């Protein structure tokens, strides 16, 4: 056995890979060799740490020093200072750069201090392409326990008592779902995993697939034992190439170790897994559409009942859970239902991973106990809003969810509180908006997405969402008419009540919730033909204040439309008929003479 005195963990998640972390790894290898350190120091390729805004991230153990925004030229400093001489490179440290106790740097960063990582427990800690490292941190121990000590009924009972609810959107109790499927009598049953993460801005499932793929395999095998299924499918989108590759490696390794196959770990349990690639249609995240797609058909939903637990894949009883839901299962089995039920709120147990995006400093993934307030997530962990701007609202649940205004910042987040506010948990995307965002424009953005992604099977969704979008387009172009807002409300309610699947039923949510909290903005657009946030271009005019203009001519140089004219000592004028409203002139003007009205 080779003893290494230090491990250098380099993040190879999608975020850090796109900012060159693989190059950093290469450079590190070269420099370690140059300094003859390769036998003392091990480089480990690992999954996402969650602090994607600060990537690429490199963590050095045993100190736990977390280096952020590491560039290829910084590697030399890390090797020559830290690894050779034991001096931590403070300028690259995350958070409090002058942290007194640098030996605990990773845990001392505010971003990590307040998190409780269960589903993300191994992300950024192990090498996801090495099954032994997963095993070392109690991996496959839950599967051993289930196969040797527990009956299928006991497994289901444990999951039920833990209070775990589906993390993909609906929040249905996982144990109850398993019980339905277990009670069915059939010659074949299936276990499926929904890894078709489609919400714009949500990437927690990708992070688990990339950083800890074995936890998914373990949980699905446990589910197979619990309901009596011997086959499983992971439905993942082809847009996640790194996740797919790691998953394939993990499945191969598990087969080699006899963890997947006809006789799992010599216990007689049979379970095998296959990956199915999706082409990235949002509707395939809906359970019936997903299964239709696995069967090889066009991904379209079908009416329920029958529910998948009764008639799912190829008409056989099937359970379908989301990646994050599965990632919780092994820990619940090992730590017990009571432990898990002790975390969170009365009706929402455990933790939830949120993908922070939009106007927030620490873009990335955070896992917090249910019941944490939005304020804690946005300000204490997320680091607040850039440039000191004011928080306006946060969109949870992506295009299926709704917005939460500043007045509800102190609401503890769980499934039920979000529904009460007119939003939903969804898969956990959390997009923050500041004072510069126009809420009508936001609603339009999400509706454009659902109109694009509607599969077209049922008219309420196919035609209804299109009509809503047309009204929104009219309003944002300054052509809103009296009665448009009421028409939107009526359409939204009807679509919600009549669409076939979750996509259509939830598509009106962004409109309904922005209408609920920001009706004044809609009214300003329709009746005063004004966009209060200055986003909707057709209602904007850039004008030059003649008194302030010093005729320097800078604005004419940046104007892409060449529509500003003037001469020395005469104030400049913008030709409104040609102006593209890009705002370049306003940014450039040194005298603040250009205003947006």
């Amino acid at each position, binding site marked *: 056995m080779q003893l290494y*005195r230090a491990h250098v*963990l380099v993040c190879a998640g999608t975020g850090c890979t796109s900012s060159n972390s693989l190059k950093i790894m290469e450079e590190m290898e070269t420099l370690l060799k140059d300094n003859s350190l390769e036998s*003392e120091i091990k480089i480990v390729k690992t999954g996402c740490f969650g602090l994607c805004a600060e990537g690429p991230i490199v963590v050095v153990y*045993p100190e736990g020093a977390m280096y952020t925004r590491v560039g290829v030229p910084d590697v030399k400093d890390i090797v020559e200072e830290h690894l050779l001489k034991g001096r931590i490179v403070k300028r690259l440290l995350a958070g409090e750069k002058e942290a007194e106790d640098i030996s605990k740097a990773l845990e001392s960063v505010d971003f990590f201090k307040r998190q409780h990582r269960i589903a993300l427990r191994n992300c950024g800690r192990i090498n996801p392409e090495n099954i032994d490292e997963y095993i*070392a941190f109690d*991996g496959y121990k839950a599967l051993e326990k289930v196969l040797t000590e527990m009956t299928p009924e006991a497994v289901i009972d444990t999951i039920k008592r833990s209070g775990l609810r589906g993390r993909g959107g609906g929040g249905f109790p996982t144990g109850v779902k398993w019980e339905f499927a277990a009670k069915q009598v059939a010659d074949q049953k299936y276990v499926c995993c929904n890894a078709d993460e489609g919400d714009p801005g949500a990437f927690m499932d990708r992070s688990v697939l990339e950083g800890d793929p074995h936890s998914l395999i373990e949980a699905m095998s446990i589910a197979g034992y619990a309901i009596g299924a011997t086959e499983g499918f992971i439905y993942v989108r082809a847009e996640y190439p790194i996740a797919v590759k790691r998953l394939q490696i993990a499945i191969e390794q598990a087969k080699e170790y006899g963890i997947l196959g006809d006789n799992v*770990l010599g216990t007689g349990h049979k379970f095998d897994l296959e990956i199915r690639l999706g082409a990235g249609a949002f509707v395939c995240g809906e359970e019936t559409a997903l299964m239709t797609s696995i069967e090889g058909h066009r991904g379209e939903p079908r009416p329920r009942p029958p529910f998948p637990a009764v008639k799912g894949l190829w008409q056989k009883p099937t359970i379908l859970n989301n990646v994050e839901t599965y990632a919780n299962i092994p820990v619940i089995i090992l730590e017990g239902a009571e432990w898990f039920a002790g975390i969170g709120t009365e009706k929402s147990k455990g933790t939830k991973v949120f993908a922070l995006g939009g106007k927030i400093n620490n873009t990335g993934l955070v896992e917090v106990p249910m019941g944490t307030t939005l304020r804690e997530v946005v300000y204490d962990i997320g680091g607040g809003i850039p440039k000191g701007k004011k928080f306006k609202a946060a969109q949870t649940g992506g295009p299926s969810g709704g917005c939460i205004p500043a007045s509800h910042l102190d609401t503890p987040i769980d499934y039920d509180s979000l529904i009460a506010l007119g939003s939903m948990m969804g898969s956990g995307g959390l997009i923050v908006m500041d004072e510069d965002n126009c809420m009508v424009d936001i609603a339009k953005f999400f509706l454009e997405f659902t109109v694009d992604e509607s599969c077209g099977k049922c008219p309420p969704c196919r035609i209804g969402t299109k009509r809503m979008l047309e009204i929104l387009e009219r309003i944002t172009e300054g052509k809103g008419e009296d009665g448009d807002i009421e028409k939107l409300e009526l359409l939204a309610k009807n679509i919600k009540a009549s669409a076939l699947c979750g996509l259509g039923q939830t598509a009106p949510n962004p409109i309904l919730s922005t209408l609920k909290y920001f009706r004044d903005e809609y009214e300003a657009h329709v009746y005063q033909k004004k966009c209060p946030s200055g986003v909707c271009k057709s209602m904007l005019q850039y004008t030059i204040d003649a008194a302030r203009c010093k005729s320097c001519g800078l604005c004419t140089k940046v104007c892409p439309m060449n529509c500003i004219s003037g001469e020395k000592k005469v104030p400049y004028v913008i030709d409104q008929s040609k102006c593209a409203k890009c705002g370049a002139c306003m940014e450039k003007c040194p005298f603040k003479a250009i205003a947006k009205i």
Partner: protein
Amino acid sequence: MKSIAELDEIRRKTLEQISLRSNENGLRVIVGMATCGIAAGARPVMKAFMEEISKRKLQNITVFMTGCIGACRLEPIVDIIDSEGNKTTYVKMTAEKAERVVLEHIVNGKVCSELTIGAEESKK
């Protein structure tokens, strides 16, 4: 195919290799590796510690490096801190002395008193 016992064996072995990523550090060996330490021969000392520890399959030991503490004339300096926080400082270390410290101090729990900073300073 692996049996559950084999899986346990993999778990134990791999954990030895990656335990330094968890925060439960037992005994710490801290080698001064600033310019003065390296010039005085700290690298062979550190390597000797690592080789001995790995050869004897000792568990829960982390080899750290640190900077200069100011007593450059006594380098290479090595601190051993046990899990209760008791610290022993060895000075003017060599690879041979490192082997001895591993055997006598780390394995048998007996401080090599004539190699410590106290012994060195009392020679004056």
